[in-house]
């Protein structure tokens, strides 16, 4: 009888026939959840010039989506503690399927496809134990639930596939229980980490901050072309005592903190919303509560700070710039440490931009 891992590995190599590619959805470079003025939540495709190629209604507030690498298909995953995920045909503009978290589990708003698009991975909370899991779904079998593997931490939030084919998981470290909303149950003992897996669920590497920073909750991550991972944190201690909220994983088992001094951290409320790796070795981190996006170089030195109200969504654009969205409906381009406005939409862009065809 084949082992679970061998079974998953075999599935990964299975091929499937693409249906409509992203060109049929207007060639967006990124996806974002958003809210219309009337309160309707939508999934939006954005072009390099900031235009919207499609707006597809969602049944509830979105967070981030998993974008299929080839097919014009996205899975919009309910924000925590939601239990549904909607498979969306972005070319035809309709929901084709609804996925449900297994009994006793909830999603965290994020997910990722394997490089070949056959498997979908969803971070999940096992509500009874608080243990984090990564759900595995077989797209080629109509998103059949295959299995799940331990996320190697509590509160797995974002998952990414890296250019080297591995999966990176941000274990935020915070235990919550849906019965008491988003109350944090383990701030004294929380222990966040970045965990690297292969697509069979084998733990490959593990990165942590020093123990005295255990209240720095790793929440959002972004991959660089060399498979380094930029990490964005949400500090759970006194916001005026916050350590640097950005770190870099370089495949060495550790997280190296970026340089953020007191003056930089003052006013951010210890909160980074999104991160991005873009251009030639640049990193960006958005601070929606400080209305600022920071830019770093590969050494972790801060090279710039640009202002935009309620800024949050970030992702690398194919031309080496960073696409930036905010809650007032604006799409900006970040280049050379300056922000230029590309477009304004009657939308409030939600937390994250998901880049397409980047990996």
């Amino acid at each position: 009888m084949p082992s679970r891992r061998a079974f998953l590995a075999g599935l990964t190599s299975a091929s499937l026939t693409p249906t409509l590619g992203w060109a049929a959805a207007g060639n967006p470079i990124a996806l974002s959840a958003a809210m219309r003025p009337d309160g309707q939540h939508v999934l939006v495709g954005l072009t390099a010039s900031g235009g919207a190629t499609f707006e597809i209604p969602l049944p509830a507030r979105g967070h981030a989506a998993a974008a299929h690498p080839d097919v014009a298909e996205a899975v919009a995953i309910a924000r925590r503690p939601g239990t549904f995920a909607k498979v969306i045909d972005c070319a035809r503009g309709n929901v084709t399927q609804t996925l449900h978290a297994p009994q006793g589990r909830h999603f965290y708003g994020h997910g990722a496809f394997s490089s070949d698009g056959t498997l979908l991975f969803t971070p999940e909370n096992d509500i009874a134990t608080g243990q984090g899991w990564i759900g595995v779904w077989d797209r080629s079998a109509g998103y059949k639930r295959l299995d799940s593997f331990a996320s190697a931490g509590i509160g797995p939030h974002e998952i990414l596939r890296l250019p080297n084919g591995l999966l990176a998981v941000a274990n935020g470290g915070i235990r919550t229980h849906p019965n008491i909303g988003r109350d944090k149950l383990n701030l004294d003992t929380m222990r966040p980490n970045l965990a690297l897996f292969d697509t069979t669920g084998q733990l490959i590497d593990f990165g942590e901050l020093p123990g005295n920073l255990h209240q720095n909750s790793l929440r959002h991550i972004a991959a660089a072309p060399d498979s380094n991972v930029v990490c964005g944190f949400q500090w759970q201690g006194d916001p005026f005592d916050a350590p640097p909220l950005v770190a870099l994983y370089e495949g060495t088992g550790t997280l190296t903190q970026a340089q953020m001094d007191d003056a930089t951290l003052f006013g951010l409320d210890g909160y980074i919303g999104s991160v991005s790796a873009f251009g030639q070795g640049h990193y960006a981190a958005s601070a929606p509560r400080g209305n600022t996006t920071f830019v770093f170089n590969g050494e972790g030195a801060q090279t710039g700070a640009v202002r935009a109200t309620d800024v949050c969504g970030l992702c690398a654009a194919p031309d080496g710039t960073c696409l930036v969205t905010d809650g007032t409906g604006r799409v900006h381009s970040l280049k050379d440490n300056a922000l230029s406005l590309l477009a304004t939409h009657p939308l409030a862009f939600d937390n994250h931009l998901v880049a397409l065809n980047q990996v």
Partner: protein
Amino acid sequence: MRLALVLCLTALPAFADVQRAIDTHILPGYAALAQATDDLASDAAADCTPEAVRPGFNTAYDAWISISHIQFGPIEDLALTLQMSFWPDPKDSTGKALGRLIAAQDPIVDDPAAWAEVSAAAQGFTALERLLYEPQSDADYACRLTQVVATGLADKSAEILADWPAFARLMTTAGTDGNTRFQNDDETRRALYTALSTGLEFLHDQRLGRPLGTFDRPRPRRAEARRSERSQHHIELSLAALENLATAMIDGDLTDTRAAFAKAQELASALNDPALAGVSDPLRRIRVEALQRTVRDIQNAVNTEIGKPLGITAGFNSLDGD
């Protein structure tokens, strides 16, 4: 005459509130700060003993607390906010920065031009308060520090004031060619509203929340400016300043906002607790908690009577927390 003015205001509704906030609140506030810090620097130059400098320090600190909620504009562009006042300071950056300068007898205190390079925590009112209200073992060096901090505060305040007229023009010409700072009137109003709502949040969460701590663990030593026993005074000053901004930035029915401000002022002035030491005393603590709840009432009233009419909602992302 009055009719003409009304028609004029009606024709330009978008600018009326912003112009008034600038003319009656922001510019006078920074002018008062520049004047008071200039006087403070002169006082310290003439006689740098704590007794001689304290009156000018108190007047200048009043002026700062009355305008410190304006965190956009030149003070942001010049990155001077923390240099003016380094608080909250849970890591005691102020004590450490002053301690390093004193231990090294750093001659930079005699070079006002280079002073801006030292740690922000050594430059502001929070540093000056330590020098004037804590015992100093080295009176001569403390004197020179006092003088350079005072001169630095005057220099920074003058710089901010000098840059404001140009920034005010950007605020009142939103959306015109070349104005990349404010692309429409909504952005300008949002900047003012953010100053108001952030100021109220700071009052609730920091000025009141930090010393309150929890019932089981009150934190009186976290009160702002407790050494100079100005903690309660700062609460009263910021209430007055924020009410002034609220009423300047909009024409409208501010009944609930005014009532909540009035109640908060009444509770604040009745505390009789200059350094908020009473947060450790259950009976006196109740009064600080009641004040904090009233500040929350102000926040709600401001949201309803100012934020909503201006079409400003709280940040979609900044409030989400995920």
